[in-house]
């Protein structure tokens, strides 16, 4: 759904630049994958902690968790090895916007990193005639406050370009974003994480 938007930013990269970047890398970078969708629970088998059980595969040859690269505003992608835990998405109209078709789409995803940390990604993408730009945030969260801050940073108000003449308080009746969505509370997700581990 997110990919159906008309882009507000566009970028084009030549193959020469990719080759150059690979040449400059000190070590060959593993093929980074765009964050995959939710895994098949039967297929996702996170490594266990503690002593290895008999019959465990050799840790030196066991396949590592997939590398994930999450888009982040203003910086290179946030990279880590891990598995997706959950994701939620909401598509909400912007009441009071000049065009009734304007919408804000929110997306939030949680991952479990190979190191045992919870990684969160929050996206807010405007759709329709709005003076706004997409916002992407990602990083480790260690508490509910961390997650709340990340979600707030990718909230709909962060998308709006106030230089376009939208006064504060905003004229638009903006939705609250992913924090208002059911089932996206950090305690819930941390519980899931503990269950998985």
């Amino acid at each position, binding site marked *: 759904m997110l990919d159906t938007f008309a882009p507000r930013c566009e970028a*084009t990269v030549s193959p020469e630049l990719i080759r150059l970047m690979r040449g400059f890398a000190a070590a060959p970078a593993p093929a980074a994958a765009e964050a995959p969708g939710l895994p098949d629970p039967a297929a996702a088998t996170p490594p266990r902690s503690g002593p290895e059980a008999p019959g465990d595969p050799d840790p030196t040859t066991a396949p590592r968790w997939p590398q994930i690269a999450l888009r982040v505003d203003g910086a290179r992608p946030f990279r880590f090895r891990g598995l997706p835990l959950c994701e939620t998405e909401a598509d909400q109209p912007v009441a009071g916007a000049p065009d009734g078709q304007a919408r804000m789409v929110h997306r939030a995803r949680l991952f479990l990193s190979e190191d045992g940390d919870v990684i969160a990604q929050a996206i807010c993408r405007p759709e329709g005639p709005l003076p*706004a730009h997409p916002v992407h945030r990602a990083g480790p969260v260690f508490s509910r406050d961390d997650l709340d801050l990340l979600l707030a940073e990718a909230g709909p108000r962060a998308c709006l370009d106030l230089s376009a003449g939208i006064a*504060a308080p905003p004229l638009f009746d903006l939705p609250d974003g992913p924090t208002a969505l059911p089932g996206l509370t950090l305690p819930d997700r941390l519980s899931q994480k503990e269950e998985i581990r």
Partner: protein
Amino acid sequence: MINFPMPAADQTNPAPAAEAQSMSAVGAYRFPRPGQRPLVFTGTLLAMAMSFTPEVPYWYEINIFRTETQEFALVLKLFFQSEAEDDYSKAWSFESIEALFDALETYDAAEDIRVPLGPTDGAPPAELAAMAYEMKARVAAQRAHWASLIGELFDELEAAGQAMG
């Protein structure tokens, strides 16, 4: 208005493959720089990104070049929808692509905000406070706008790298 010799960047909605192919063409470029001599080089366009949104009164365009001297040039252009505003460009040269990417990440787009000069002597405190809040909002908006564009560029780099295997 600034006139840039940007054959690849001036194409309108070219097919991605055709655009990528056109990037490899060697061209001669000359970019004016405020307070400095123009950046002149011969090279190829490696990447470009732009942030045009009709509802926002300005947009950025970023171009990355590799020069024949094996350096990397970063050209930033700021365009305004209003004809009353003058577009302008900045350009830098770097010895490595990593240094160029570092510069993209650390660039402060607040530098590009034009401060209207007006009489402030005798202005009531409330008016000064309002001006300060407006400036603060503009700084935040400009930085967020830039950050969104840079994120798009790095994301496209990531996607292009994956596509190449």
